[in-house]
């Protein structure tokens, strides 16, 4: 199975030709993000799985109508959102992507000096300096992968699109139909959580 990125037109041509490896590669590339998107709308992982399956059927059935105005990825995610919304309505649930949930501090408040103390709001337990060369060993990557998988679905979606897949902020906003400010809040929470999970691995 190839892990090289293939461009959209080529991927579509291969799918039309019935290339199973190309299909598998495409599924593998988008599966985690599709699941995260689906889970922002539906409750259980099992239902999200069904939504993702339905979305792939939708992708295949309307492949001839893909005009390349957006990227294939954007188009696929839009189909997932569509299927997930339909499913959420049927479940009597409607959770807009814009629901950010309660505020959460980027860093455990106990690591800062408390109000009333001298230097209130400044570090009590500062982080150690990051190494010059970032560790990319298996364990570090595994911890990162776990931390990403544990993120709430909306945060996970934004982080996967931005930091794993390299989408631009604009692309994420238009694909998910969220404001630039909300996109940044979700990215901030995701990155803050992942940094915290990786902290011991990121200390020089």
């Amino acid at each position, binding site marked *: 199975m190839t892990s090289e990125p293939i461009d959209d037109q080529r991927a579509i041509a291969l799918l039309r030709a*019935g290339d*199973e490896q190309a*299909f*598998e590669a495409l*599924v*593998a*590339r988008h*599966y*985690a993000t599709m699941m995260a998107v689906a889970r922002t709308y539906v409750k259980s992982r099992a239902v999200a*799985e069904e939504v*993702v*399956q339905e979305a*792939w*059927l939708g992708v*295949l*059935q309307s492949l001839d109508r893909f005009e390349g105005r957006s990227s294939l990825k954007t188009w696929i995610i839009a189909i997932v959102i569509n299927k997930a919304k339909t499913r959420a309505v049927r479940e009597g649930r409607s959770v807009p992507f814009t629901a950010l949930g309660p505020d959460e*501090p*980027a*860093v455990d*408040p106990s690591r*800062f000096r408390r109000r009333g103390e001298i230097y*209130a*709001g*400044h*570090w009590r337990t*500062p*982080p*150690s*300096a*990051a*190494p010059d060369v*970032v*560790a*990319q060993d298996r364990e*570090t*990557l595994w911890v*990162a*992968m776990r931390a*990403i*998988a544990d993120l709430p679905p909306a945060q996970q979606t934004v*982080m996967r699109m931005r*930091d*794993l897949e*390299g989408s631009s*902020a604009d692309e994420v906003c238009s694909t998910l139909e969220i404001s*630039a400010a909300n996109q*940044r809040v979700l*990215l*901030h929470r995701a*990155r*803050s959580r*992942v*940094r915290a999970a*990786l*902290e011991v*691995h*990121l*200390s020089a």
Partner: protein
Amino acid sequence: MRDHHLTCQEIVELVTDYLEYALDSETAAQFEEHINFCDGCAAYLGQMRAAIETVGSVEPEDVPQETLDGLLVAFREWKRT
């Protein structure tokens, strides 16, 4: 606009806006001034950048075999029609 020094606790909440160039120029200047003088926050910013780099190296998770099998059946079905 605001005439007070940013605390470290405020800095860690501004890091993403800073990295996304979303701070107004005055706050960005205060942010940078703080980072220049505060080892803890400089370390925090470094860790944040390192975390983003690490996340960029994470491979997509494996698709559960059952899901993949189901999708391949659907793909073959679609191919025939």
